[in-house]
């Protein structure tokens, strides 16, 4: 790109989103549609609701459920993935079961979870954990089986202990793949949190948004949608930052390998 093009691109990058916001604001302020209140209304309702009145009652429970479910999934999936990655026979045995379970659309499992566990927090944590396991598990397995054969040979030649082999070689070697899986699971966690709260909850952001719709509190509903969008964006962004830090070695290694 020429210098002029680069300047144009950067300029557009900043102005286009702002422009779209302004257009939305203008279009909605004159609007009489009930379902699309003026942007200004939405923003002020947002401030009233989420800064910081309902943080304790809705945001915190939602995030806690999500965090617990995601955390459990990470621990279980990485451990299982490491073991399955190292044993071709275990992989073959587990394959049909894994393939089937992960293909079940998560919402179909909600009634099952409600039946067996009930409608409380543990049900939500369970379903989030159950769904989030699969991407991480499969990616961990991929990461382990894809470890460079020379690296494996080196590890064998130097007689590295089984423990070290698992935690200090296989785990770091697979970590780029693991992080990719975790990123997918993170967005799944958010989705499942919202759905489970919409279907069976008395608090939480998902519950709030649906409830607002039912009681026709439209600006509140939009404020909730906005919050979820911000949440999705922030979580993803934070995760990317963490990933970048932890996987700095990986980017360096790839860059030098390609050059």
């Amino acid at each position, binding site marked *: 790109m020429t210098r002029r*093009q680069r300047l*144009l*691109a950067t300029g*557009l*990058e*900043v102005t*286009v*989103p702002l422009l*779209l916001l302004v257009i939305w604001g203008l279009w909605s302020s004159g609007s009489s549609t009930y*379902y699309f209140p003026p942007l200004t209304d939405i923003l002020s309702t947002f401030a009233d609701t989420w800064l910081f009145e309902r943080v304790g009652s809705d945001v915190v429970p939602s995030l806690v459920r999500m965090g617990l479910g995601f955390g459990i999934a990470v621990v279980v999936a990485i451990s299982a993935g490491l073991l399955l990655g190292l044993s071709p*026979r275990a992989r*073959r*045995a*587990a*394959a*049909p*079961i894994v393939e*089937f379970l992960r*293909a*079940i*659309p998560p*919402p*179909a499992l*909600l*009634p*099952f979870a*409600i*039946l*067996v566990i009930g409608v409380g927090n543990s049900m939500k944590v369970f379903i989030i954990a159950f769904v989030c396991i699969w991407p991480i598990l499969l990616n961990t397995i*991929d*990461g382990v*089986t*894809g470890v*460079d*054969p020379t690296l494996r040979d080196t590890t064998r030649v130097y007689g590295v202990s089984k423990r070290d082999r698992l935690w200090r070689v296989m785990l770091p070697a697979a970590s780029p*793949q693991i992080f990719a899986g975790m990123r997918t699971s993170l*967005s799944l966690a958010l*989705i499942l949190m*919202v*759905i489970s709260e*919409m*279907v069976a909850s008395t608090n939480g952001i*998902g519950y709030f*948004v*649906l409830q*607002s*719709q039912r009681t026709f509190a*439209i600006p509140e*509903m*939009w404020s*909730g*949608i906005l919050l*979820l*969008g911000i949440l*999705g*964006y922030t*979580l*993803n962004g934070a995760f990317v930052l963490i990933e970048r830090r932890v996987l700095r070695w990986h980017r360096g*290694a*790839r860059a030098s390998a390609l050059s």
Partner: protein
Amino acid sequence: MTTLARSATSRPRSLRVPDWALPWASVVGVLVLFDLLPRIGVLPRDHFPPISEMLSTLVEQLGEASFWEAVGNTLQGWALGLAIAAALAIPIGIVIGSSRILYRAMRAVIEFLRPIPSVALIPLAILIYGTGLESKVFLAAFASFWQLLVATLYGVQDVDPVATDTARSFGFSRIQRLFRVTLPSAIPYIATGLRIASAVSLILTVTAELVIGSAGLGRSINVARSGGNEELMYALIITTGILGVLLNTIFVRAERRVLRWHPSQRPGEAAQ
């Protein structure tokens, strides 16, 4: 060069399950286990009916019109959602991906809208479209759109610059380069994107059925549960699983076909 040098296992050969049989053995094992456990009371029978009962209910359902209606509704929502998403995302992705300036302009918007969980729009969908097919399709299409858009963008941008430069030196116009170089090289990415978008569309379809109550498997599952018909609930859940596996297999096969004839420039995963 392989590095396997395992000494022979200490287990006598006659007891060792051969590799090819492993998957079957484990499936049979799991089925038997989950059939016995409820029967002997380890698992509560009202929550966990024996698998044989679940499966026999499923077989019964195959003769019921209501079952096929539900399956049809789900597939309808899935197909429409995916088709609309593809019809929008692929062209838009190609256009934005081909222009560096356009991409930079839209990048922030895409990056912000993409992580919005589409389920957050469920209430909005209810408001605007009610509780029928349109709601379902709207949600499925919205979610699949972003997956496919990003995949297309990535595919278009990942074209080997040497290939486009070569085409340009031969005097091909921009449009010609697009169709002859860029698109063919982007196809594997689009194929993968379609596979993922298909899964997403199915998830959102069933979600809409579950939460909003649109006709389909999701609703039927919930109805079965609240009606106390656990075997039916499980049978329908298994059905959605089978549906998921089938759809996934179709797309995986198609993706493999596409990759096979394609002079694959894809950066392979792992192994580095």
